[in-house]
């Protein structure tokens, strides 16, 4: 660990937040946030392996084809957001905005697909531990997707402020990190819920 000095020429008043610390703080937050999912995942695995009858009466299992398409869309959006970041670094704002918007749209499509799936299911939140964990995991993840889309929207608006990204914009980096995080969580979730039946 190297030491850092505090003096920054022309630094604003001391109680301003230092941008380079924001990213550090955000990464720490993501690590911490992943533990909640880890808790839910292990709870799911434990309840499933010890259940006497896991699926509620009349439920055969989960349909996996549409969720798979959803998965592909969401995971590819990780690629588009990386492209967007790449173009932002090249200061090509038009392509940045294009790919950024595309990632948002793919996230929104995922949420829509999720909503369609939910509305077609024969079990509810209170249908035993299966129903409970299914809605808890997908719902909590969906909440993160929605948050990610909101953050991206915020960054998109900020990109129209002239000169906003001149000194490197950590908000974009953080949002993109968050989006990758949401994608990785979904892959684990998909494996746990849809593949392991």
């Amino acid at each position, binding site marked *: *660990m190297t*030491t*850092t*000095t*505090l*003096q920054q020429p022309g*630094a604003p008043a*001391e*109680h301003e*937040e*230092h941008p*380079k*610390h*924001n990213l*550090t*703080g955000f990464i*720490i*937050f993501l*690590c*911490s*946030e*992943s*533990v*909640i*999912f*880890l*808790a*839910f995942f292990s*709870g799911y695995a*434990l*309840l499933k392996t*010890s*259940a*006497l*009858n*896991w699926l509620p009466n009349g439920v055969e299992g989960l349909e996996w084809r549409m969720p798979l398409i959803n998965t592909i869309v969401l995971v590819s959006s990780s690629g588009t957001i990386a492209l967007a970041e790449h173009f932002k670094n090249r200061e090509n704002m038009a392509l940045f905005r294009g790919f950024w918007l595309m990632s948002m749209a793919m996230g929104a499509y995922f949420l829509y697909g999720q909503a369609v799936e939910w509305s077609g299911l024969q079990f509810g*939140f*209170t249908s*035993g*531990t*299966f*129903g*409970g*964990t299914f809605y*808890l995991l997908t719902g*909590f993840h969906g909440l993160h997707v929605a948050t990610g889309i909101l953050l991206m929207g915020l960054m998109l608006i900020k990109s129209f402020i002239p000169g906003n990204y001149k000194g490197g914009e950590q908000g974009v980096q953080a949002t993109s990190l968050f989006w990758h995080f949401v994608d990785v969580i979904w892959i684990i979730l998909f494996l746990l819920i849809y593949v392991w039946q």
Partner: protein
Amino acid sequence: MTIATFPPEPTPEQGWGRYFGFCTDAKVIGIQYIVTAFFFFLIGGLLAMVIRGELITPASDLVDRAVYNGIYTMHGTIMLFLFIFPVLNGLNNLLIPTMIGAPDMAFPRLNAVAFWLVPIFGFLLMASFFVPGGPAYSGWWSYPPVSIQNPVGHLINGQGMWITAVALSGVSSIMGAINFVTTILRMRAPGMTLFRMPVFCWTALAAQSLQLIGLPALTGGAIMLLMDLTFGTSFYRPEGGGDPVLYQHFFWFYSHPAVYVIILPVFGIFSELFPVYSRKPLFGYVYVALASFIIVGLGLIVWVHHMFPSGVAQWMRNLFMVTTMLIAVPTGVKVFAWLGTLWGGKLRLTTPMLFCLGGLFNFVFAGITGIMLATVPVDIHVSNTYFVVGHFHYVIYGAAVMGIFAAIYHWFPKFIGRMPYEGLGKLHFLLTFIGANLNFLPMHPLGLTGMPRRVSSYDPEFTFWNVVASLGAFLLGVSIIPFLLNMLSAWIRGPKATHNPWNAIGLEWLLPSPPPEDNFGEEVPTVISRPYGYGSGQPLVEHQDEIERRLALQEAAA
């Protein structure tokens, strides 16, 4: 760096108002945390007096059984979430930036938000006393199914408010932890490598890392508990295929490390204060610093020792017993290092030193009963009895709270700018030490003979030790009076403190008392040696003589 304009102009008196508003100065937030914590400490203490009043006789005769259960639940909850954690975060806020030479925390606004959540969830928890059905009554563990029975049947109920408050406390702690970790990692003074950092910062870093890893698991578990309670899901409900033991895993995965979140900074306080008051360097600084992180690693894999009788397999019991035992090793390293520091020193038995010595005494006792509790057959006999209650009160009150008192007496002159009174401080120490031992020692024989914890009535054979414990508790209740008197009168009209009244080594002691708003500002001294250079004659920072000369001049002029 230069010290051209050092020391900075003292910040003009800003009055009391800023302590009641949204202020982003870590030193103000620190004091806000500590004062709020002690407000709730008095409430939690009052509840403890009711508990001990009930238990002074075998029958359930002082309060109704339902009321008793609510009171002991709220006593534990308040003491942990509204006293210990906030008071430690207060110390972190005061000490971390000044010790590492940072002008403030990394995220001052987040810091203020984290603080203001405390009174908010504190209010929520207090309000639960007044909702129909009363507050949560299922213990601070809130084990389901008892905690999801909801006897009053309303959507708004004490247990639901309890879970919400605990979740908010978690949010506040996570915000704090992100802030402390970022500050320590990114904002240290020039020259202050990790191995030149004071041990308090090491222990704070370790403790806050534990918060970041552990708390989300509890939050996840609490979300599921709230769903079961409110929406009728069945994560923990056996009728719907749920598993009540799953909750215990979530709960203890965080709540055992929570003990280290509490005790690690107190180890930090001991490591800071023993060198000052025995005028010797900390013995084996590197080992003490690293031991904190070994405790973090082991602390995350011991939680099942709270669940030995809960229905876990024998191999799991053995495994978690071994990991629990191993924690004794890094903890022992610290205890022996403190003894090595004291040995051959020139001891000054000031109030903070007495609190440290008393705290160490109690901690060693608690560590020994801790080893007993780790061994499965003995634990099976005494778990969920008063033996455990005695053990953790020795840790929390006997060691942690004593250490916190030591820290308050030690750093009070620095952050308030006035000296606390030694006579009152020593009286406070004496009452606390005797009261704590009189209160908590009798709990061990009670547990060994089989008195379960959380009971509102007991068989008559347990009466004698319960009476002794209750008398000790009342003495402990009285012991807070000289403390409050001391703090209030010293704050208002205590003698002015110099910049370094204890002749201590550390960046915080190279600042005026109280420090200006942005601490060193842009003139952060360059650190050139390890902390605790007592007796070595080596300066801690460049231009140390000049800095101290100017501080003395400023004090003489004032």
